């Protein structure tokens, strides 16, 4: 199984080669960081918690509104080739187990999400230094990154399932954005831990860097959603086969 999974990861890498899809993960956080830093500079009278205030300005809109849709774009792109012409036949007749096919795509979606997160933190550090903030990143930043990436992988799993079932490129992205906005409501009500699209922003502590995250509940929630949507993907791909 491990051998097959590696083969699928390699095959997906070949399909993604020379694709400009990573550019979106590069450009949108730059836009957010630029405006977030400008807003921080203009409101320093109110935003007094230095690195923490800057983080709230950088992360709020990006994490709730745009990252789910951005991940959705990547996941739609990963399935785009399979939805073209008769490529499903070639895809399903590959001599590997079906779960390995799904895992190959999840691996790259998770990798780009982690890389996108690393880029967000790099921009945060650079902008903090430009603003003249003392020291380096807050000590909790590594935890924000790890929890954010885990929450992001949950969104990858859901968006991959959606993009597999829905042939349209655009519709899953629209769903991702709408679901991300819905995350604001759930988080506001205190139900963020139970709503998969809120997990990313909660993990990143978007807008609330001082928040204490209930780590066990968060991790269990992420794992449950991961298994649930990975299971749904495998069931759907089996049905597709029939």
């Amino acid at each position, binding site marked *: 199984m491990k051998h097959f999974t590696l083969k699928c990861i390699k095959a997906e890498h070949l399909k993604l080669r020379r694709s400009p899809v990573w550019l979106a993960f590069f*450009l949108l956080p730059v836009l957010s960081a630029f405006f977030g830093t400008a807003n921080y500079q203009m409101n320093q009278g109110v935003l007094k918690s230095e690195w923490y205030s800057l983080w709230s300005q950088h992360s709020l809109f990006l994490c709730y509104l745009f990252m789910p849709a951005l991940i959705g774009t990547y996941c739609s792109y990963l399935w785009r080739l399979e939805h073209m012409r008769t490529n499903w036949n070639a895809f399903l007749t590959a001599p590997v187990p079906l779960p390995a096919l799904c895992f190959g795509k999840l691996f790259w979606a998770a990798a780009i999400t982690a890389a996108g997160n690393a880029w967000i933190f790099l921009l945060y550090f650079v902008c903090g230094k430009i603003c003249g903030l003392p020291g380096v990143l807050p000590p909790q930043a590594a935890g924000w990154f790890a929890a954010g990436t885990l929450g992001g992988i949950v969104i990858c799993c859901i968006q991959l399932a959606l993009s597999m079932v829905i042939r349209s*490129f*655009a*519709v899953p992205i629209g769903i991702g954005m*709408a679901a991300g906005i819905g995350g604001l409501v759930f988080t506001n009500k205190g139900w963020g831990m139970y709503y998969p699209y809120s997990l990313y922003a909660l993990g990143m502590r978007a807008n609330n860097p001082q928040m204490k995250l209930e780590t066990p509940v968060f991790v269990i929630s992420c794992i449950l959603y991961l298994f649930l949507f990975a299971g749904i993907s495998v069931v759907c791909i089996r049905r597709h086969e029939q």
Partner: protein
Amino acid sequence: MKTLRLEFYKIRRRRVWLTMFAMLSVQLLWGLWALRNPKDWELESGWMSLLYVLSMLDGIMLPTMMAVLASRLADIEHKGNTYKQLETLRSAGSLYHAKAVCGFLIITALLLAQLTFFIFLGFRLGYAGTPDVAHYLLSYAFKLAGNLSLFLLQLILSMLFANQMIPLVAGLGGSMAALLLMFVRTYSFLPWGGILSASLVGSTWDETTRISSFYYRSFSPAETAAVAMIFVWILIFYFAGRFLFTRKEL
């Protein structure tokens, strides 16, 4: 007319309506949640605040919705590789025009449904008085124009690029630009700032009483020019799209 009818015929099983109304329903659910249990001062200025809130919500969501709509209308041809064949039956210009009009009609219906729902919600919540008809109609017209300009921009991208990732990322970037422009000032000459520029209601926040007050904006010459820019963008995007599409090797 026949080309336009065929556009609707082509999308009849593509669930374009369903997609648009699904995204609209998020706005509706948000409205039900965020506007529930209004305080007395909120009821007093309810109709005015509704116009303000809708402008903000639309400014953020609609650039992405327009990208999805344009992509749904254009990628059917990319998938079927039908552009060349269609061009042997009718001119490329009329095909572009039909898609633009088809999108315009869908946006008109979508915004009408949104406005109807929120007016109904306003009455249910017991907002004082009745909505100011002139301001609501003008707001609807401006929003329609703002969205049409964004739709035409997205249609250009969706028809020119077979890879729909490019227009969709542009739509997401547009949503983000619209959101961030809100923090800069009340108007913008960029296409994504059109809905914000044409918002008829402004707001001030009193820190001591923690109460927002709303007022009908009086437009400065620069703000009026920003509103006029929406219509200039419509013309630019329509003719640029037609020009580029008719000269593209399909």
